[in-house]
């Protein structure tokens, strides 16, 4: 007999992985891993914001991620501070502000570890509803912007010359990423979110011939990582979030080996 909490954890985790992985493909293709990491780190400020103002942490993270996205877009117009420097400032100041803000919340018991590393085994039915609602929103947006975003990723200038509204599509993608970070936080925590975005995508690169194929395979690799990680976490009583990331890394190594074998066999 499978326990209810495990079923809920699997449903939540697989849902998040299936949403994060296709989005993560674009993070990998556009070399935006550091932007993803910045969203994730600054998410702790969103958590604090939610607790202080009395609304759900997931909503708080969505707000902080959108704010970070808009700041990054606004700073693209200037050249005196490099993009990576700005991301570094936002990531760590977001984390620090969040930790400081949480320390002011006396009397409120805050399970910091759950936010930093996830606590998927404690996920509630309401949170699952949030995850799937947000997930549908993310995948629907991604489906709408898929072609123009792919064109921009292949060659930005060419796409712009052909009339792709570059700024609008990029902002839509970054906001989608912000929502994905918010829903993934419950499963792996803010410090490990980026792994659910990029590890499954990287795992299947060698096995894919088209972007669409890579997105589907990445979703499968992500789901496999969640299932494997959760079962391992139960079997050996290890923390769930880190166990999922360890499983994802094993999937990555297997995917890399399979891709290399396939190329060797072909040549």
């Amino acid at each position, binding site marked *: 007999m499978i326990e209810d909490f495990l079923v809920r954890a699997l449903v939540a985790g697989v849902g998040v992985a299936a949403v994060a992985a296709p989005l993560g493909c674009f993070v990998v293709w556009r*070399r935006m891993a550091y932007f993803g990491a910045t969203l994730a780190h600054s998410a702790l400020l969103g958590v604090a914001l939610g607790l202080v103002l009395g609304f759900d942490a997931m909503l708080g993270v969505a707000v902080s991620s959108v704010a970070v996205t808009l700041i990054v877009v606004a700073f693209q117009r200037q050249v005196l501070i490099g993009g990576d420097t700005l991301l570094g400032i936002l990531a760590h100041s977001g984390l620090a502000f969040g930790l400081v803000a949480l320390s002011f919340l006396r009397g409120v018991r805050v399970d910091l570890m759950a936010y930093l590393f996830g606590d998927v085994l404690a996920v509630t039915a309401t949170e699952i509803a949030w995850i799937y609602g947000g997930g549908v929103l993310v995948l629907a947006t991604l489906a709408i912007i898929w072609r123009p975003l792919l064109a921009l990723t*292949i*060659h930005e*200038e*060419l796409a712009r*010359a052909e009339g792709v509204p570059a700024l609008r599509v990029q902002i839509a993608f970054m906001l989608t990423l912000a929502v994905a970070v918010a829903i993934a936080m419950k499963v792996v925590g803010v410090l490990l979110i980026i792994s659910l975005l990029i590890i499954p995508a990287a795992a299947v690169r060698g096995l*894919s011939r*088209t972007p669409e194929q890579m997105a589907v395979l990445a979703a499968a690799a992500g789901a496999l990582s969640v299932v494997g990680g959760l079962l391992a976490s139960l079997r050996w009583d290890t923390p769930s979030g880190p166990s999922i990331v360890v499983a994802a890394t094993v999937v990555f190594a297997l995917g890399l080996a399979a891709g290399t074998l396939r190329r060797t066999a072909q040549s």
Partner: protein
Amino acid sequence: MSADLAVPEPLIRASGVDLRLGRTQILSHVDMTVGRGEIVTLVGPNGAGKSCLVRIILGLLAPSAGEVWRQPGLRVGYLPQHLSIDPVLPITVRRLLALAGPGAAGKIQAVLTEVGADTLAGRAVQDLSGGEFQRVMLARALLRDPDLLVLDEPLRGIDLGGQLALYDLIGRLRRDRGIGVLMVSHDLHIVMAATDRVVCLNHHVCCSGAPEAVSRSPEYAALFGDAAARQLAVYAHRHDHSHDLHGHVIEHAHTTEERP
């Protein structure tokens, strides 16, 4: 310079275009037109502002002064300079071409045949040679059914045989489809032999007109040197008679990048 007797239907026209970036004057008062069925080549030394002018014409860059008129509804096919696709993104030729626009998927094989790349559809884009990749990107531009093709240094990194073949192809496309072609080059030789009109740019338009006339003009000689001007005549002659120059690789003497 030489007066064109039959003026083709204009597709784009730049008038009085100025471009200043910071304190550098990149372009001053540039006028330029490309008409239907016409091959216009923009030549000039590195850093002369050729790519900037192309980007202004494409609407990617706003001029500091002057204006660009485009024929209403003009469809442009563009081949940017330094084109490459990052290998982190898996993509086959067929999938890349299907992304060219609505309705592209059904015409892929026909267009690949048109550019002489009919065997490449199933290949991964990153496995193609430079010449194959240029042909695929040209096919991609053609799938959009353009009125105007803009090619920024299309011959870069392709051996001489490949360059001649690509030139023949561009000439044929102009004839068969009646499209206008705007080409950028810093290689003078073959380029000018296969073009209707040359615009010689060094921040401003030094001279323009038919290739033979331009190559004899004192402005052109001043810009590229007498030797280059004489060499041009030799190449123009050679191109008329010989298409079997395979195996030679054009070495690009410059190493500096042009302004983006």
